[in-house]
């Protein structure tokens, strides 16, 4: 069991309804975590229904969906960036 800070931005934040939470999980990878959260409540399912338009960072570095959660402190979910 690990404890993660999970943060959400833009429409991912809006769909989930919060900006930050602490999650206790047995998930080994980002994919596992997405599946676990989606199973918990519909708002997660809604946010994560199309993971091709969701980006993920572990400890402020972009990672792919199969990235392991070993040693992770903060996981972030957000849409593709639109700055500039």
């Amino acid at each position, binding site marked *: 069991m690990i404890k993660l800070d999970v943060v959400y*931005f833009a429409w991912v934040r809006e769909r989930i309804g919060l900006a930050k939470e602490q999650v206790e999980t047995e998930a080994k990878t980002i994919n596992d975590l997405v599946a676990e959260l989606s199973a918990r409540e519909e708002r997660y399912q809604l946010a994560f229904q199309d993971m091709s338009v969701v980006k993920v960072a572990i400890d402020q570095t972009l990672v792919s969906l199969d990235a392991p959660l070993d040693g992770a402190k903060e996981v*972030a979910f957000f849409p593709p960036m*639109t700055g500039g």
Partner: protein
Amino acid sequence: MAVRVQAEDFDLGDEVSKLTDGNTDIGAIVTFVGVVRDTTNGALLSMELEHYPAMTKQALETIDQAAAKRWSLNASMIIHRYGDLAPGAQIMMVATASPHRKDAFEAAEFLMDYLKTDAPFWKKENFKDGAKWVGSKAADEDAKDRWKA
């Protein structure tokens, strides 16, 4: 080589002066300023810029350092604002100073292309009758890819 993330507006002329002051090896300065554009002919109230504070500065520095490594630059900078911005307001700027104009232009375009896809900012347009997140564009990923050849 400097990056700043701030709510406040910036002055293009001042920033360029500070960047280049006293350096006589600069031959070319290129700047880009992004502006809140109203595509609806008056229905846009504001553009809200959200970012991921813990990640933003480091992401911009990575982009800035990549440009400094690839081109001959005397100096470069990125400023990006966040918060609620009115139509016509400045969103961000980059500036590049180089001995040669080609380097200054290419580095500025590189900074913009990477910033669009790699810096954790998101834009939401607030209209009189609702709000809409600005979608990312396939064209932006394509623009970035040209630097990988």
